[in-house]
């Protein structure tokens, strides 16, 4: 447990110094939200689609955050040094996923606030509880899957385009679930709160399944030529 936190803190400290998230990812995600609104060009339509649009923006941002997370490891073969520092590679996996999770959760919070401001989404008491739970489980799933596929492509040429190609189909259930549950939290007419909670349960199952898969698969993938 301790080494997980050490790895996560290392990644977050690098982020704190380089400010990639703040300088590139946040502006990018906000831009995506604005561009969606411009493209749809109809206020009722935007309000109806707001939950899906927020999660699309987070999905795109996940790609950038994961790429950054492994960019710092592949330069100077840092991943090998990190792996040799801990007893089990799965702790490195969970550590990197935890750092990604912290960043994505912060981003998700910001984007939901922006959705309230820009798209006019509304959240009340019960909805807020659901919304926070959805954000927690969905970003956990996003960061676990993202980190897993990040290490799959980490040592490959052309990883920038391979990462979305491989991970976006896998993330599709997360997008569906998070968007529907958020829609429920925003108080839409088409989907009620209990459905929203059912989706949240699916998101949690998803995070657990892929978290376990990642813990098993990380070791053979992270090691270089053997």
């Amino acid at each position, binding site marked *: 447990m301790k080494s997980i936190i050490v790895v996560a803190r290392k990644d977050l400290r690098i982020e704190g110094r380089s400010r990639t998230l703040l300088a590139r990812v946040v502006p990018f995600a906000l831009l995506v939200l604005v561009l969606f609104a411009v493209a749809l060009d109809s206020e009722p339509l935007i309000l109806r689609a707001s939950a899906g649009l927020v999660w699309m923006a987070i999905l795109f941002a996940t790609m950038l955050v994961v790429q950054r997370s492994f960019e710092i490891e592949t330069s100077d073969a840092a991943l090998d040094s990190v792996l040799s520092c801990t007893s089990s590679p799965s702790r490195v996996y969970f550590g990197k996923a935890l750092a990604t999770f912290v960043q994505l959760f912060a981003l998700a919070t910001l984007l939901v606030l922006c959705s309230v401001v820009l798209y006019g989404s509304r959240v009340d008491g019960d909805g807020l509880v659901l919304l926070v739970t959805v954000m927690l489980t969905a970003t956990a799933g996003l960061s676990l899957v993202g980190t897993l596929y990040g290490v799959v492509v980490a040592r490959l*040429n052309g990883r920038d385009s*391979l990462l979305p190609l*491989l991970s976006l*189909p896998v993330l599709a*259930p997360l997008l569906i679930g998070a968007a529907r549950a958020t829609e429920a939290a925003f108080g839409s007419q088409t989907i009620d709160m209990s459905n929203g909670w059912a989706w949240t349960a699916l998101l949690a199952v998803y995070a657990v399944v892929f978290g376990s898969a990642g813990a098993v*698969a990380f070791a053979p*993938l992270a090691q270089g030529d053997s």
Partner: protein
Amino acid sequence: MNTAPSHVAVASIRGTGTGATRVLGAISLALLVWLVVSALFLTPADVVQGDSVRIMYVHVPAAWVAYLAFITTAVASGCSLVRRHRTLGFDRVAGASAEVGVLFMGMALVTGSLWGRLTWGTFWQWDPRLTTTLFLFITYVGYLAVRQVDVDPQQRARRSAVIALLAVLEIPLVHFSVVLWRSLHQEASVLNADGDVRLDDLMLFTLFSGVVAFTLVFAWLVIHRQRLTALADTERVIGLDSAIAVRRAEVAR
């Protein structure tokens, strides 16, 4: 610069075929001819769907082979991870089967939407089966893209095996979430929602022979393509060896 070493002279140009694959190929060709004749001319038109049912005889076998291919890929990938001393052999089967599977799945999607246009009135419906198939298709396109990247064969085997096994986790989750997603919506009104076809004996037999024929074609393609990968790997090693030999000879002179 010609780097061909002398022992290449004994190589025949027989390709990847053997007696067994030729027999397999001949049987599949004969079955395909029968399938085309029977499906397009001998079988009757369906009572509800009319002649558009003739697309079924190519669509259903293609979809069957596509799923068979991905099961093959998953099993071969699992074997390549477990049985360390034969990793590369299983990896080649997994790769060849995914290549053929992507082709058949693409065809199943295309013929399915052509059939859907005739029976449902739309090319595409977001129903769970179609959506899952589409995601499976994209996933394996990504799998093949990773295989294209030039890395050491052992590492490629390990990496692609993991991706194939993750796809096995992914597909049920995609399917389940799409089922849940679609259950909230009213079905779009379609001409014939379930596309039910009542099959007489000849139609059933034709469909069955289509499945057999396509399975044999799949087997033929996978055998040849995995041998082709083996050839390409060997050829690269030989090319490298002979290049080194030529270089050594130059240095020694």
